[in-house]
């Protein structure tokens, strides 16, 4: 990708880019991964606590407890986003807070808050899924493709 881009630019720019590259502060990938691992793990731990709570005190089984757990996590995310805490967690942990369902909730809620000033219909309604829309689209699409492959394999592959 980067090499492909570089072919289209004059040599002086190429030279500058490689020169600049040396000065550029790189993302600390290993450190970020470790932070993401622990924060992501901690969010999952909270999720597990919530689902255990629901199993013990409400009429949910392991099968059905997923939905209320996610709803609760998203509710917590909503509060954290509204009070301006979630973006700080996000800056610290990166993928750790972006990959769990709370990250998805944050993407929707932050966009909704951001565009509130433009009104409910065109602002909130039109922009709420600005970031999360592609997650939904490609999530549904990849689920469709996987289901298609599975169906084909089972029907004709004799698996």
């Amino acid at each position: 990708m980067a090499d492909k881009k570089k072919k289209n630019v004059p040599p002086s720019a190429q030279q500058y880019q490689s020169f600049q590259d040396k000065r550029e502060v790189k993302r600390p990938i290993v450190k970020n991964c470790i932070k993401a691992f622990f924060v992501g793990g901690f969010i999952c731990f909270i999720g597990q606590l919530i689902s255990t709570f629901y199993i013990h005190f409400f009429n949910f089984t392991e099968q059905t407890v997923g939905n209320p757990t996610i709803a609760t996590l998203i509710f917590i995310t909503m509060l954290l986003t509204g009070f301006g805490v979630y973006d700080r967690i996000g800056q610290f942990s990166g993928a750790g807070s972006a990959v769990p369902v709370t990250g998805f909730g944050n993407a929707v809620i932050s966009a909704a808050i951001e565009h509130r000033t433009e009104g409910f219909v065109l602002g909130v309604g039109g922009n709420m899924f600005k970031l999360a829309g592609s997650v939904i689209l490609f999530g549904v699409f990849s689920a469709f493709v996987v289901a298609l492959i599975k169906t084909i394999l089972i029907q004709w592959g004799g698996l």
Partner: protein
Amino acid sequence: MLQGHRTWIFENRPVIISSGTVGGPFEAKGKIPNDIDILHEDMWLNQASFEKAQQMMMEEACQHAIKNSPIQKEQVSFFIGGDLINQITPTSFTAKTIGVPYFGLFNACATSMESLALSAFLINGNGANYILSGASSHNAATEKQFRYPTEYGGQKPPTAQWTVTGAGCVLLAKEGIGPVVTSATIGKVVDMGMSDAFNMGGAMAPAAVDTITDHLREREIDPSYYDLIITGDLGHIGREVSLDLFHKNGVNIDENKYVDCGLTIYREDQPVLAGASGAACSTVVTYGHFLNKMKKGELNKILVVATGALHSPLSVNQNDPIPCIAHAVSIESGSDTL
């Protein structure tokens, strides 16, 4: 007037008779809160939107500059300014409020010096008596415009910069007491094919180097002529890269006399990553911090080089590189002769 290819010398010496700077809560916690005239503790400024808050700051800056000058608002010939929001509405709405003839500019974060250069040129050529020249930006409004929603928990790389919430403006006059604008070099758009919107400093450094090098050559002066060479918002990375480029090109710039507004406004422990940016960054720091220093006599000659990245979210998404520009304006103490 024109000296060399793209440098203006203002022999009629337009004077900065007053200035006004406004900052937000984050700036109030920064390194130079005492140099900012009006500080707000609320990002919203009691307005309905961040864009309106930005307009409010620009208005306050203009009013402050006029109030601190001997003239009345009606005597102002033009208002020249710009910002980063779509179609520069905060500045245009400010122009509506103050009700003076208006030029709207967009050069991203280089707008401040572009407007100062044009204002000085107009006054120098007897095109106006008094001009208000300024720029503004608002962190949340700019994030919304260029990046993600403010509260979105995405991780920014260490090369990212923090947009300043603030506004600044100066009142430029034909004569009066104050620092004078002596020359300006207009920048060329420099495109080094950089396409990372989270690394502005690295993209803008060549533009700054290009403008400063040409400015020094066309004015036939040495870098040591200036007490300080001030860049707009290169941040840590851009500053280092530009210093390296100067050394490579054989321009002898003293590291201690080469400062960056993006590294001046905030303290190191504030979570700003590579430094500050935004149209208000160079504006607030120059018109607040450095003009104050000139008034105190700590500085006599400064060269302010505001750098701007002329991309839009659209152009970045369409994989276009980020073209950059830098405008240089020299400000000298009034008592000095050219």
